[in-house]
């Protein structure tokens, strides 16, 4: 069965800290995504990767960076956490094909609080 695992369900950090969110998928998918979910704003794409060491900015990349050293693992980094980054973070993966109908498979999210 398809599995996307996010390392933490809940995380509390302090303003200014460097924060790492980890995501692992076991489906050999090329594509991996990081979203943040806020009420009324839906799912907003932070960063996207279609291959190892490849990354592409999404709609809201400011204040974030990513790392993809291995195909199965995609890390989201908050360089200097701020209170406005308190949110639910979702990781997803999908196959890379020329067609548009590949579903994204999501992890269960990390609820991050920045104090």
């Amino acid at each position, binding site marked *: 069965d398809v599995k996307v695992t996010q390392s933490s369900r809940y995380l509390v950090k302090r303003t200014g800290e460097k924060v790492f969110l980890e995501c692992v998928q076991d489906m050999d998918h090329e594509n991996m995504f990081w979203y943040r979910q806020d009420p009324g704003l839906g799912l907003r794409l932070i960063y996207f990767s279609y291959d190892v060491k490849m990354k592409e900015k999404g709609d809201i990349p400011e204040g974030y960076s990513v790392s993809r050293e291995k195909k199965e693992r995609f890390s989201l980094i908050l360089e200097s956490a701020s209170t406005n980054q308190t949110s639910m973070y979702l990781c997803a993966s999908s196959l890379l094909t020329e067609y548009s*109908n590949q579903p994204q498979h999501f992890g269960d999210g990390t609820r991050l609080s920045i104090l």
Partner: protein
Amino acid sequence: QQQVKQSPQSLIVQKGGISIINCAYENTAFDYFPWYQQFPGKGPALLIAIRPDVSEKKEGRFTISFNKSAKQFSLHIMDSQPGDSATYFCAATFSGNTGKLIFGQGTTLQVKP
């Protein structure tokens, strides 16, 4: 042009009723329109999807209606059940978009017993 607008933001329906969630888009290049369902504490999961060459797709109690000329599509949940209570996201994409989806704002559905 890349936005997908979803309404309503929240919806309360009695058990057995019909739930309707609407989405609108501008980009005519979109060729795939999935709906995702998210239960509390879980990530979204693909529920049902449609391509613009058909006007309707039905899977069990869930139906997508698609109006290409109006650039609108909607999710209908017939005989709504308390177990359908979840957040629903519409989305859109096109071939060559490397798998990226443009999501709507989400609708939180509560089905009352």
